[in-house]
């Protein structure tokens, strides 16, 4: 069965510092991988996705993620964090399914940004 693990419940970084949020997945075939961000009181917004091809994918808001098959990981990175990046980040894995496409979300990592 598919699963997604985000080992860090919360992370605090200083504004301007670099960021890496960890994500590990379990899936038998090549996974469809996503990172979503949820700001307080908002729905989720797609940051980036990986389906195939180049293992380093660029997303919106200056985020990138790298797919590493050998480590079953899809970590999210940003070189310089802004205070507005404080939010909850969800890694997700999806697969085509009978009747559609099913997405499994990780537990989330809450990012705090300190001045």
């Amino acid at each position: 069965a598919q699963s997604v693990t985000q080992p860090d419940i919360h992370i605090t970084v200083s504004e301007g510092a670099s960021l890496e949020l960890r994500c590990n997945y379990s899936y038998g075939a090549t996974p469809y991988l996503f990172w979503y961000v949820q700001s307080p009181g908002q729905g989720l917004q797609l940051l980036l996705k990986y389906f195939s091809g180049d293992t380093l994918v660029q997303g919106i808001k200056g985020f990138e993620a790298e797919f590493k098959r050998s480590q079953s990981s899809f970590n999210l990175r940003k070189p310089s964090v802004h205070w507005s990046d404080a939010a909850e980040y969800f890694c997700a894995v999806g697969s085509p399914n009978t009747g559609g496409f099913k997405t499994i979300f990780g537990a989330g990592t809450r990012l705090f940004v300190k001045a």
Partner: protein
Amino acid sequence: SAVISQKPSRDICQRGTSLTIQCQVDSQVTMMFWYRQQPGQSLTLIATANQGSEATYESGFVIDKFPISRPNLTFSTLTVSNMSPEDSSIYLCSVELAESSYEQYFGPGTRLTVT
């Protein structure tokens, strides 16, 4: 992208009553999804709602408790029936804009508190 709205944005309800949540999209979509996000937790898929067919429910969710309607390609409702305090959650609808894109766009959510 798409503009997705949900009504109500929040509600406080008494146990034993029912609440119907509306989800409206500004473009026609085939796939719509309903999720539950319990306090401090990740998203759990309740059901997939395709226009013209019965909703497909995930394990642990039943139609009698969470009836869903999908009358057209821009609208869906989720009813939370015979509510108990355990139903207190944020309920999110999402859509897949382009068939087989596997990207989901989320509404802002409905925050439900059951007393």
